């Protein structure tokens, strides 16, 4: 086993341990770093009866000190640097950062003097959720990936639709 494989194995085991510690009670703090509020709209809908994320053991909390997971939306405006860093530092470990939406992934403001352009520029992101906005279903899937309950399938997709058409 070469060193990089070894590291990957250790990282995988660490991620499993952390996911196990979160168990079925994970508290989410949302952080808006300059989004247009449509991502927030979708996040709010997660608590509606149709999606009902509380059944899965996810809860929203207004206090970063109570939060296990930071759900970040928006392109990370520079004016928000101090607040974002303070929020992250106030969270107890182990903590997970989830970048949500195309803005947070660098798809909307890649080069703009007022924003960093993506959340990864300031915070260590663990899970990326694409979409503009990501639907509540996509968010639920992303949260499940973040706590290791579902396997991610994006690496296996090609986005080539040859043959019978449709399907990635």
């Amino acid at each position: 086993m070469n060193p990089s494989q070894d590291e990957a194995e250790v990282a995988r085991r660490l991620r499993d341990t952390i996911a196990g510690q979160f168990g079925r009670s994970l508290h989410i703090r949302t952080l808006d770093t300059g989004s247009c509020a449509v991502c927030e709209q979708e996040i709010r809908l997660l608590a509606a009866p149709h999606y009902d994320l509380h059944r899965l053991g996810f809860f929203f909390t207004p206090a970063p000190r109570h939060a296990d997971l930071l759900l970040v939306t928006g392109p990370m405006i520079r004016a928000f640097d101090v607040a974002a860093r303070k929020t992250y530092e106030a969270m107890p470990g182990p903590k997970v950062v989830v970048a949500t939406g195309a803005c947070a992934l660098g798809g909307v403001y890649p080069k703009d003097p007022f924003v960093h352009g993506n959340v990864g520029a300031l915070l260590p992101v663990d899970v990326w959720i694409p979409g503009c906005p990501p639907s509540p279903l996509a968010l639920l899937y992303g949260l499940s990936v973040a706590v290791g309950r579902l396997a991610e399938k994006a690496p296996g997709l090609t986005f080539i639709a040859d043959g019978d058409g449709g399907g990635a």
Partner: protein
Amino acid sequence: MPLWFVRGLRRGVVTTRYPARPDDSAAWLPRPPAFRSWQLTREAADRMVAVCPGPALSRRDDTLVFDVGACTACGRCAEAAPDAVAPSGEFELATTSRSALIKDIPIRGGGR
């Protein structure tokens, strides 16, 4: 008395697995495009790169580089080259690696 309540009392479980059944609303979700590589020419690729409002599409020689994370599913590429673009139907795209969202689409059309 609702049926799910009775079932829950009997089994002791009222929640369902994810997803309990395919969600009908998934058909209306914004979803990134997939590309038909044999219909894709360099000209069509350049047209799509030009209309893409973000950095989601770029061309590197005979490869169309598609950043799924940067895609806002606006559908402008499908208007610019309707033959080469098909709906992907994928929305469960969350990943732990940003680079896993950058896809290389080979450009196989145009007699090459």
